[in-house]
């Protein structure tokens, strides 16, 4: 691969395929994400958008193709996937906070055992990140004592504390009550403005309009169309995109 040509791409996905039994989730998807770019992937359920996202940090192992994250070929056998994952934060639909640990400990754990930071440093960074997402006062609560929106913000802080180069969001607001969606989206918009590279699978068109540099529409395990938010929402080219947008907008 030509290094100069791709130097601004932090994620390169090339002809990736993935099947679950007979279901073909990804049928040859290629995609590049630039450093500092905010990419939003939309599409109907079962279109393979979550699978694509989970392939980037190898939570799903693709059947074929190539994926390079920050210069590292993640599907290569010799690659230590843990060092790649430490640089790639992920936020899940179901938050997945560690219920046996306090909020502060949730944000500190991976810092200590993956980054090898000392207790004091990890705590300082954890408190900074909790402030960053707007809930420094919840440091000593347990996850079950928080609302869904607060839990998701802790999950974002937990990822950010690792100082990742990329953040992946897998439908971060889909499990939230409507009145809590905004507080999470606000954090994500702020993060986008700070220049974080973000790949977001979401149904939140408001967020896509406000924060995305580029939108990718997937269906049936393929990328149907991609473009800037204005072009995508105002002048979709493909029939499939038009019918999808007419249903959700």
């Amino acid at each position, binding site marked *: 691969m030509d290094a100069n040509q791709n130097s601004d791409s932090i994620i390169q996905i090339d002809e990736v395929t993935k099947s679950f039994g007979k279901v073909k989730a990804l049928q040859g998807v290629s995609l590049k994400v630039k450093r500092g770019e905010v990419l939003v992937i939309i599409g109907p359920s079962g279109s393979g958008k979550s699978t694509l996202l989970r392939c980037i940090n190898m939570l799903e192992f693709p059947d074929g193709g190539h994926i390079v994250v920050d210069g590292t070929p993640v599907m290569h056998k010799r690659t230590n996937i843990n060092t790649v*994952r*430490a640089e*790639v934060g992920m936020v899940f639909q179901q938050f997945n906070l560690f219920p046996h640990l306090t909020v502060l400990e949730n944000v500190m754990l991976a810092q200590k055992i993956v980054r090898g930071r000392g207790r004091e440093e990890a705590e300082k960074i954890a408190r900074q990140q909790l402030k960053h997402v707007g809930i420094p006062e919840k440091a000593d609560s347990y996850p079950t004592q928080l609302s869904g929106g607060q839990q998701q913000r802790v999950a974002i802080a937990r990822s950010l504390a690792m100082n990742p180069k990329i953040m992946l969001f897998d439908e971060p607001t889909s499990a939230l009550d409507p009145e809590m969606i905004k507080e999470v989206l606000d954090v994500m918009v702020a993060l986008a403005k700070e220049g974080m590279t973000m790949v977001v699978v979401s149904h939140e068109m408001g967020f896509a309009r406000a924060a995305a540099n580029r939108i990718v529409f997937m269906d049936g395990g393929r990328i149907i169309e991609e473009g800037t938010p204005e072009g995508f929402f105002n002048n979709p080219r493909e029939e499939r995109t038009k019918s999808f947008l007419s249903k959700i907008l």
Partner: protein
Amino acid sequence: MTTTNEKIGEGRLFPSTSKLEELPWWALIIGLAAVLIIFSILTTPLYRDAFDFIREGIVTTVRVTLTAYAFAIVGGLFLGLGRVSKNVIYYNFATLYVELMRGIPMLVIILYGAFVVVPIGLQLINGLGSWLTGIGLAGLGATLQQVDIQDVDMSGRAIAGLAMGYAAFEAEVFRAGIQSIERGQMEAARSLGMTYVQAMRYVILPQAFRRVLPPLGNDFIAILKDSSLISVLAVRDITQLGKLYRARTFSSFEAYNIMAFLYLSMTISLSMLVKFIERRLGRGR
């Protein structure tokens, strides 16, 4: 009178006519039996004689139970991790062991452990000793070579058998506990860059341990009861001393009443403790 009663009874699945039916009669009866036995021990020479003889076995029963249980927990954790492992050798080894042990009666496992596994194990240690001597580690080698079957008494062999069997049960408890933790926990831990072992150690197992505490407690009661089987090895536990006392005095009634009383007082108080822990954990979540 009858009409009001009927009104109160309405809406209940089993209308009760009086408070008497709600009393835990079973507990009262057990308590009464306990009082009766204690009274007999204090007042009847025959019962006191039996009690003084058999109670010597409590220490052995408790010691064998605790030691075997500790080994079973450690072995069970190791095997349970194997049962959920993706490593083919580890998984198959653990599964083979669990399936074998669960299919053999505990009494047979105890006999097998005492007269097959322990002697073979000692021979292996002797062999290791001569090998070590051969490569120049004469000191350690000689010590290992001198280990003799006489050095392991029957209670040690009994512990080996019980631990072997119960390790398989605890393995299944740990496996179920680990598998009951949502998949997202492992994914979140791994996505933060933790290794599989780190994720297990810091995220999955601490949660799994809380969930398996009640079943582990129940298995402790079970191993306490099964420890009576070691009397076949002539280990002087409660059961063995009860049998001896009966053989010596022909007072079966007193001997076996005392035996049952001793086991029951231990198991009932333990099961109350398990219920208490269960309730406290339930509140925490």
